[in-house]
């Protein structure tokens, strides 16, 4: 008799311990977890689920799931999914976030538990996972693709259209023929640039990276070579260049550095009034901002515009892939890749880039490269 009692006590203790262990695991799982029976009554709920739905499991044990959910849409969605009694029923729903503009997006996924012998469904597990970030990235990618598609089509329209006109029409003047050919030529170059941007970014994405072709060059030359193109295309703009008196030698990939300057200048011009001023300043600074511990110098380039500026929220995202400040139909052209590529190139040179901006006043983009 005593042996029996001892055995039973031992069994009880083991069961208790097993249950405590499972409880411990469930409590610490970050995702919300709800287990319901075939009548949709709540059997189990972990802390995360309690917090997400703002309820207490202790008040819900064996109650229909309806009582756990205040939001009507969510309740209907969940019940519809549970009624299907299948695994991998899935749906998204929103929960209030930090503010009304930023709700959290949650994904609820169901899994059925079947009795081993009878194969009957005994209960259903619903796991709730925060997918806010993933959905945001997906959205940006879709918008990026649609913008990229539009950017590619624009030069293609000119190229296809004018080439066909040149081939089929006999009534064009010599000047017109020349003009249309130059359009085709210009748009082909534009297309090449866009395709390069897209390839650069997809390389950054896949982390194959691109190789740097570093050579000794004079900082001033790298900067000055880039200016004329922008000055010509924006004649009303005043582009000022300020450089140190003595030439500064840098060991950098000249073409990539010029790409950095072009991308930043291009943004500055895009978001500034036609007759504005843009200052490009190059100067030697102590290398305090870089990881290097040795006291060495760096060359800092600042590109300052008096354009529309950015909010802190926009500045935070400016280097994100696919991020565009304005994606509405009325937005200026751009793939949202320029600054991503800028940061990548600067960081590959062991440098650092950052943005200072004030809405309504203007933006300054600064980057440093170790000398």
């Amino acid at each position, binding site marked *: 008799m005593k042996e029996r009692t001892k055995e039973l006590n031992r069994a009880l203790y083991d069961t208790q311990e097993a249950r405590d262990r499972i409880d411990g695991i469930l409590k610490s799982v970050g995702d919300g977890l709800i287990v319901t029976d075939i009548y949709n009554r709540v059997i189990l709920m972990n802390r995360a689920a309690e917090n997400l739905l703002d309820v207490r499991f202790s008040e819900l044990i064996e109650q229909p799931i309806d009582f756990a959910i205040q939001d009507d849409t969510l309740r209907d969605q969940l019940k519809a999914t549970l009624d299907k009694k299948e695994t991998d029923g899935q749906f998204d729903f929103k929960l209030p976030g930090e503010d009304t503009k930023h709700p959290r997006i949650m994904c609820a996924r169901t899994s059925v538990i079947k009795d081993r012998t009878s194969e009957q469904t005994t209960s259903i597990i619903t796991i709730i996972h925060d997918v806010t970030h993933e959905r945001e990235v997906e959205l940006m990618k879709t918008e990026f693709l*649609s913008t990229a*598609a*539009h950017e590619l*089509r*624009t030069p*293609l*329209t*000119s*190229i*296809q*259209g*004018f080439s*066909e*006109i040149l081939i*089929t*029409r006999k*009534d*064009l003047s010599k000047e*017109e023929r020349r003009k*249309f050919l130059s*359009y085709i030529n210009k*748009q082909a170059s534009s297309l090449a640039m866009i395709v390069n941007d897209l390839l650069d970014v997809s390389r950054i994405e896949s982390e194959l990276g691109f190789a740097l072709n570093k050579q000794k060059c004079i900082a001033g030359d790298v900067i000055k070579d880039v200016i004329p193109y922008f000055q010509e295309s924006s004649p009303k703009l005043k582009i000022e260049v300020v450089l140190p008196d003595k030439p500064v030698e840098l060991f950098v990939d000249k073409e990539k550095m010029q790409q950095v300057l072009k991308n930043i200048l291009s943004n500055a011009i895009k978001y500034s009034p036609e007759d504005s001023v843009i200052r490009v300043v190059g100067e030697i600074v102590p290398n305090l901002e870089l990881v290097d511990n040795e006291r060495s110098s760096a060359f800092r380039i600042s590109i300052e515009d008096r354009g529309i500026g950015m909010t802190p929220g926009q500045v935070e995202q400016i280097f994100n892939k696919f991020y565009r400040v304005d994606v*509405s*139909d*009325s*937005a*200026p*052209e751009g793939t949202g890749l320029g600054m991503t590529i800028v940061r990548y190139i600067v960081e590959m040179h062991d440098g650092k880039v950052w943005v200072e901006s004030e809405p309504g006043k203007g933006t300054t983009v600064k980057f440093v490269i170790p000398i």
Partner: protein
Amino acid sequence: MKKILIVDDQTEIRELVEVTLRSGDYQVFMAKSGEKAIEIARAEKPELIIMDIMMPGGMNGLEATRIIKNDPETKDCTIIMLTAKGQQADREAGFEAGADDYFAKPFSPLELIRKVEEVLG
């Protein structure tokens, strides 16, 4: 002579459509923004408006289409939207805004003429 209004923010595209239509017997007007399009539509009452759907920097093509179609003075203008090829959403948005037809970019000028002749009958 039928009047056609071309609306696109890009000068080259406007020129392309204008050259394309030159072979027909049309009086061509051009606008580079939604606002200008509405102004010209009201003044000239063109039989056909070829409107780009995306026009950065101001009122876009959808908005201008909506306004033109809702104005009793201009609602009889036929509007063909220039959309990006394969973008179903563009087409749907265009029809929802009141456009009568769509034409995708990039395009063959010969096909555009065919479409214009078809629409103007």
